[in-house]
């Protein structure tokens, strides 16, 4: 059994408002993924030092959104992890700057090389 079969991918949730972050974590876990949390870009980079992050899930109204995207792209541990935003109103393939817009939490699977839990 290889590593990816043993443990679901880790999604790093970056959100400054506690109750929204808790809700995002609950939805990510409901999809069967492992979720880690950060309040801003600095916390996100600190978490990434110790964990392999498959995808960064955030939202465009996080005050440090631009810094988060820039710092993730420049960070060797995070540069390959896509940044995604859940946006139920977005059309297929739409992006917000560097971030991919996903219609729902189930769409996270399309970004991961991992069998759908």
């Amino acid at each position: 059994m290889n590593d990816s079969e043993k443990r679901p991918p880790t999604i790093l949730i970056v959100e400054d408002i506690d109750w929204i972050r808790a809700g995002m974590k609950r939805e990510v876990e409901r999809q069967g993924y492992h979720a880690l949390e950060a309040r801003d870009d600095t916390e996100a980079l600190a978490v990434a030092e110790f964990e392999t992050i498959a995808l960064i899930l955030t939202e465009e109204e996080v005050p440090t959104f631009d810094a988060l995207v820039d710092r993730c792209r420049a960070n060797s541990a995070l540069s390959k992890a896509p940044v995604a935003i859940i946006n139920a109103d977005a059309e297929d393939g739409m992006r917000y700057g560097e971030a991919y817009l996903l219609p729902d939490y189930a769409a996270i699977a399309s970004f991961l090389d991992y069998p759908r839990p």
Partner: protein
Amino acid sequence: MNNRPLNKILSELPDSELARVMPLLKPVSLAAGERLSEGDARNRFIYFPETSVISVFADMSDGKTAEVGMIGFEGIAEVTSLLDSRQPSQSLNVSIGGKALRASTEDFARQIFDGDGLQQRLLEYAASYVAHVSQRSACAVLHRLKQRFAIWLLLLADRLKGDVIEITQEQIGEHLGARRAGITVLVAELQAVGAIAHSRGRLRIVDRSKLESIACECYSALALDQQQTLN
């Protein structure tokens, strides 16, 4: 009078008074998202929604907005401009597109004191509108977004007389003064408990009683049947 308007205030007028005001009213079709007035401009028209729903927004200087009132077939958008046309109106936005009857505020205001029925109906409605806005204000301060979201859905459904609401999550966020990401979380939560179903731009109330149990006590004061009982 045949073909009475669907708007409750107009439809409940005595025939003679309805015949007097009908020439002032023009049927209009309102599109969802249409802005009917600006907060800093004098309101030139009043609207009697029939199948449309109009929201009253308070606008902040930083561009943030929040809905403070909702007006459907039961009311007038908005009644304070009729009582004092010098008063700058708040912003009126069409939440749900549909039909309405529109009149010049100035022309309609002249008719208010010419008939007992119209005067009485307007005063009753003004009282219930003030009660609605007051309750929504207290609710916004005291209650959680999840409860306010549930109430807001119920208020809309009451005015649509249906369970399907054509609205995006971004629009919901604007109405409730909340981030879209927060609305996404709440929609997922209400969907998981079976209260609503959501697909892009369309939300359906699946279990009304479940939604009522999530809403705070304010819904019992804000529900249209309660306002009608008071009147």
